[in-house]
């Protein structure tokens, strides 16, 4: 029974994507229902199964590894799948208004959205390096047309730049995979560990270096982030939300898988985690400073993504159960908070007609709910209690403290200060009173505006609730800690 759940998570969104391209009147609604609404139901069953039986493998078509392709589910994969279901689901509900079924925009939008969902689910479940390459390409090829869908010259140019760099990244990754297959004779992430320990050589080190470069480029990790801000800022709102909350994390997820699961603990390439931490620290500071300097709301949020991805790499050298909790919580709370902020920014852009910070005065009257969602998301990004972001940063500080990494502590505090700086800068711009005579209430009077703001608010509240409801989530997460990270 549980193995069918894994298939369902990949197959149902794909089926939905096929349904949405059919010309019938109800096919789009049916496709979205089959592909998105079904996911939380499957995931509840899958979560219960993982709690009951722990992590497990499934060989597709009964072909066992090394020849066959295996799926693998563990608490980390489960966390990512839940994020796809919830963030993707709420963002899809938000997109429903702008991309109605039956309109030309809707006909272009929904097949790509469902394909993106299927590709991400497949990626988080896959245990095969080449299958992961295919999934990475599918994610890219589904995400980029969604960016270009905004139709402006800026968005098409950003999509083109993203595409060229993503294609290059995939090729570098594929070259690494080719070398690794030649050295180890398998593509399976978890079988490879045994062969790797035996066949240690410059070829495998080079292979891992190439794979790392490819993934860091896809994950927009400083200094390979150049494509991200414009691509994320110029996409339609729900697409920005999913890109920042989920798509860039696919690459970080694979870095985790390869370095924490596949590479043997004594492999010389484990030294790369220190380099990852340096890049993470640089991303945190550089992204934070650039976010402070932006003049447009969506660009501030996009640079904030560059910075927040830094935390996810900073964790790598810490190798403790606290660090593991911090990484998982940062994945979760940044995803929720960042998606909430992008959805709120889309509503503000819609209501005000511009997302320049200079034009955003009196938002507490014009778009009160969206501003509230933006602020709540900001609270989690800054790491103020009691949000999920606070918990992630607190655990990270604790892990750095335990390891005696003073420089890391300093970087973490500086990163949070910068985050506070850019969030308060948005709020200060939004609460200005430029012209006190006007008093229209754009959002409060239109039910559509209220509903759209509600979606942003829902994600922001979930980011906040993640701080309160941490105990059961962390219990499941702890069971999935990589070997060597668990409590002694």
């Amino acid at each position, binding site marked *: 029974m549980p193995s069918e759940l894994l298939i369902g998570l990949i197959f149902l969104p794909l089926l939905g994507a096929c349904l949405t391209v059919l010309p019938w009147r109800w096919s789009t609604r049916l496709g979205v229902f089959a592909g998105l609404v079904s996911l939380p139901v499957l995931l509840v069953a899958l979560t219960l199964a993982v709690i009951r039986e722990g992590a497990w493998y499934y060989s597709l078509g009964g072909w066992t590894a090394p*020849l066959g392709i295996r799926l693998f589910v563990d608490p980390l994969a489960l966390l990512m799948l839940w994020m796809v279901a919830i963030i993707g689901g709420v963002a899809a509900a938000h997109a429903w208004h702008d991309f109605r079924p039956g309109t030309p925009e809707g006909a272009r939008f929904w097949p790509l959205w469902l394909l993106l969902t299927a590709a991400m689910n497949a990626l988080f479940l896959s245990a095969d390096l080449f299958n992961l390459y295919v999934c990475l390409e599918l994610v890219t090829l589904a995400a980029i047309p969604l960016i270009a869908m905004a139709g402006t010259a*800026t968005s098409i140019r950003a999509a083109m*730049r993203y595409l*060229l760099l993503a294609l290059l990244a995939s*090729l570098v990754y594929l*070259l690494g995979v*080719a070398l690794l297959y030649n050295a180890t004779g398998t593509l399976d992430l978890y079988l490879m560990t045994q062969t790797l320990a035996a066949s240690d050589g410059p070829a495998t080190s080079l292979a891992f270096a190439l794979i790392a470069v490819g993934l860091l480029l896809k994950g927009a990790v400083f200094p390979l982030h150049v494509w991200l801000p414009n691509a994320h800022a110029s996409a339609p709102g729900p697409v920005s939300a999913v890109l920042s909350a989920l798509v860039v994390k696919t690459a970080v997820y694979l870095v985790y898988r390869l370095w924490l699961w596949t590479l043997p603990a004594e492999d010389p390439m484990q030294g790369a985690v220190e380099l990852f931490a340096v890049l993470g620290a640089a991303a945190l500071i550089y992204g934070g400073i650039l976010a402070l300097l932006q003049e447009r709301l969506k660009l501030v949020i996009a640079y904030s993504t560059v910075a927040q991805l830094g935390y996810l790499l900073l964790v790598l050298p810490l190798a403790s159960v606290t660090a593991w909790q911090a990484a998982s919580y940062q994945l979760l709370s940044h995803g929720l908070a960042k998606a909430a902020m992008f959805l709120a920014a889309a509503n503000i852009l819609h209501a005000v007609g511009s997302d320049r910070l200079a034009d955003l005065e009196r938002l507490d009257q014009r778009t009160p709910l969206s501003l509230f969602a933006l602020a709540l998301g900001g609270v989690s990004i800054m790491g103020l209690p009691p949000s999920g972001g606070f918990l992630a940063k607190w655990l990270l500080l604790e892990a750095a403290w335990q390891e005696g990494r003073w420089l890391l502590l300093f970087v973490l505090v500086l990163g949070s200060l910068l985050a506070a700086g850019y969030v308060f800068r948005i709020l200060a711009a939004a609460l200005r009173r430029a012209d006190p005579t006007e008093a229209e209430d754009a959002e409060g009077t239109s039910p559509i505006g209220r509903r759209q703001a509600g979606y942003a608010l829902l994600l922001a509240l979930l980011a906040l609730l993640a701080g309160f409801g941490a105990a059961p989530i962390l219990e499941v997460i702890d069971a999935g800690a990589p070997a060597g990270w668990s409590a002694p």
Partner: protein
Amino acid sequence: MSATATIYLLTAAAVFGIGVYGLLQARQILRQLLAINLMGGAIFLLLITLGGGAEGPPDPVPQAMVLTGIVIAVSATAFALALLVKLQDATGSSDLDPPDAE
């Protein structure tokens, strides 16, 4: 490793190098796409050569990988070309410079 395999490997390295050079040096997107395709071709050649096997039958897994890789390369290139047409329509130019004015 046989002499033929060495020749293939050197060819793959040379083609990959030409692709990297082309990508770095090209200003037009179309040329950059061609360069990326060259790099892809080099990796496919490398995969097939490494899977050749000095003795015994060749390993089928790299061949399956290359077949899939070709499908992906073709679809990615087709999409990139379509996007390039859109870019040409929207901006009247077919390269990424000048940088985004905003």
